[in-house]
């Protein structure tokens, strides 16, 4: 089976994000970069599928030179080869177009993506990629199995969960709960260094860098007005005061 996992390198969840003074982006100086956590679930599911059904896992990533570290992490987890499309930044549509172009020669039976990247938080790439590849999609899934030539996926929705069947080839996007991603073993890390990674330049692939969704400015989050600390020694009195404030001032209960 031809399995593809898309990965993105993002700032660690603990990273302190500082907007550049001119609002053009974020300061990248002190950021620790990691694989997008949702992509880890995708890579893990890809590896499990390979272990069950055989085949090959190709990991594809779009990003600047440092994104190679994330590709190597996926290779160390057990992926077989990588494709690195070098580009500084791209919006969701252009990212998906680049991934689709890179997958032309791979002919995937299934593509795993994270349900969203925790940097731009857009959650669009998997679906746009599916459209551009002409494949069906099941997004934000917490359960996955291949049954013959079909995929069966569990998808939580508000107040319920669905079991959705899709023809293959297809694109699925991984949500937390799908699996427990493995750690790269030391032999895995050694082996990863020798695995092939095909580096392609986005411009050479003939891809547009003109965004369809353009960030005109970034700003720090709005400050919340300072709150009120309810002082006192008696828990019952403090609780009563809180309930009174919620009822009379905030009017939310």
């Amino acid at each position, binding site marked *: 089976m031809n399995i593809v996992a898309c990965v993105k390198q993002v700032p660690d969840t603990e990273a302190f*994000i500082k907007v550049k003074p001119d609002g053009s982006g974020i300061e990248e100086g002190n950021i620790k970069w990691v694989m997008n956590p949702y992509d880890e679930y995708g890579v893990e599911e890809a590896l499990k599928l390979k272990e069950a059904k055989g085949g090959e896992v190709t990991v594809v990533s779009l990003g600047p030179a440092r994104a190679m570290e994330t590709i190597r992490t996926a290779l160390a987890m057990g992926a077989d080869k990588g494709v690195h499309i070098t580009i500084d930044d791209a919006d969701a549509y252009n990212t998906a177009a680049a991934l689709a172009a890179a997958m032309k020669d791979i002919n995937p039976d299934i593509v795993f993506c994270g349900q969203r990247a925790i940097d731009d938080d857009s959650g669009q790439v998997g679906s746009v990629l599916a459209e551009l590849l002409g494949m069906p999609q099941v997004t934000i899934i917490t359960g996955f199995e291949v049954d013959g030539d079909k995929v069966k996926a569990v998808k939580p929705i508000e107040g319920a969960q669905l079991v959705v069947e899709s023809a293959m080839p297809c694109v699925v996007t991984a949500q937390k709960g799908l699996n427990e991603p493995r750690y790269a073993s030391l032999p895995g890390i050694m082996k990863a260094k020798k695995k092939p990674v095909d580096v392609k330049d986005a411009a050479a692939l003939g891809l547009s860098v003109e965004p369809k969704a353009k960030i005109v400015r970034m700003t720090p989050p709005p400050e919340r007005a300072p709150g009120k600390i309810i002082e006192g020694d008696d828990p019952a009195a403090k609780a009563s005061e809180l309930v009174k404030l919620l009822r009379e001032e905030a009017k939310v*209960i």
Partner: protein
Amino acid sequence: MAKGVWIVAEHRNGALRNVSFEVASVARKLADELGEDVCAVLVGSGVEGFAPELGKYGVDKIYVADDAMFADYTTDAYSAAVAKVVKENDASILLLASSVQGKDLSSRLVGKLATGMASDCTEVKIADGKLLAIRPMYAGKCFGEIVMESYPQMASLRPKVFPIVESAKAGEVVKFDAGIAADALKTKVLETQKDASGKVDLTEADIIVSGGRGMKGADEYKVIEELADLLGAAVGASRAAVDAGWRPQSDQVGQTGKVVSPNLYIACGISGAIQHIAGMSSSKYIVAINKDSEAPIFAKADYGIVDDLFKIVPEVTAAAKKIL
């Protein structure tokens, strides 16, 4: 030239969902500024009857595709239907809710319509005749202002952030044929498993009572559940509590959990790590109950009590009982 503010209306179990009214209300406001109409697309089976209700929230015209093949939401069927009617009418702006269905449908439409979208926006406005969308990025550690350089200009709106505003318009129903061959569809819903608890989903709750590491164990959530039951609230949890196995994944609020915007969020024994704040900072009122006066959650809270949650929460329940 592209014209009109369009929305996709979402429905479930034979009724429009509240998020549809939120999105319609926003669309009306934008359309009034532009001097244009609001059009809605409603795709489903047996939906024509409740379509006119959208008129109450400012929708001029509702394009309805009513067919048995739309009985369950599937990406391929719904996205094909919406893309067809939006393209034919050359929509200028297209808004959806950033609900579970809206996330799936809107992002597929970005591909189908080859356009740009600002996801999960918390503010949208018209600037220089174009849509300007404002949205949290990096889990709310910063915000981005986005303009679309292609049409339709798409945005998905975070549920429960935008108020529902009534504004009576014609709500004229126009039926359209989506022109989809049923055998071209590649996905289907095999099963819908309803949440047996019957509790309101976190993303739809007006009030959430949430517990974190300070809860110390699964059984201790009883104090939270009692308060939640009394207030008609949903119970949430921090990542620490979920990773400890005290609460299910579906309860997790935060960067790798759910993003919620209730009217009231009561954080009990939650320190307020940045991953957690990401999931609840758009709540209208935030209450923090935590022993540690230095906990970062207090910087986000409208009301705070520095004390042991096991002393305070039962007293809050008792005090609320007296007035509710």
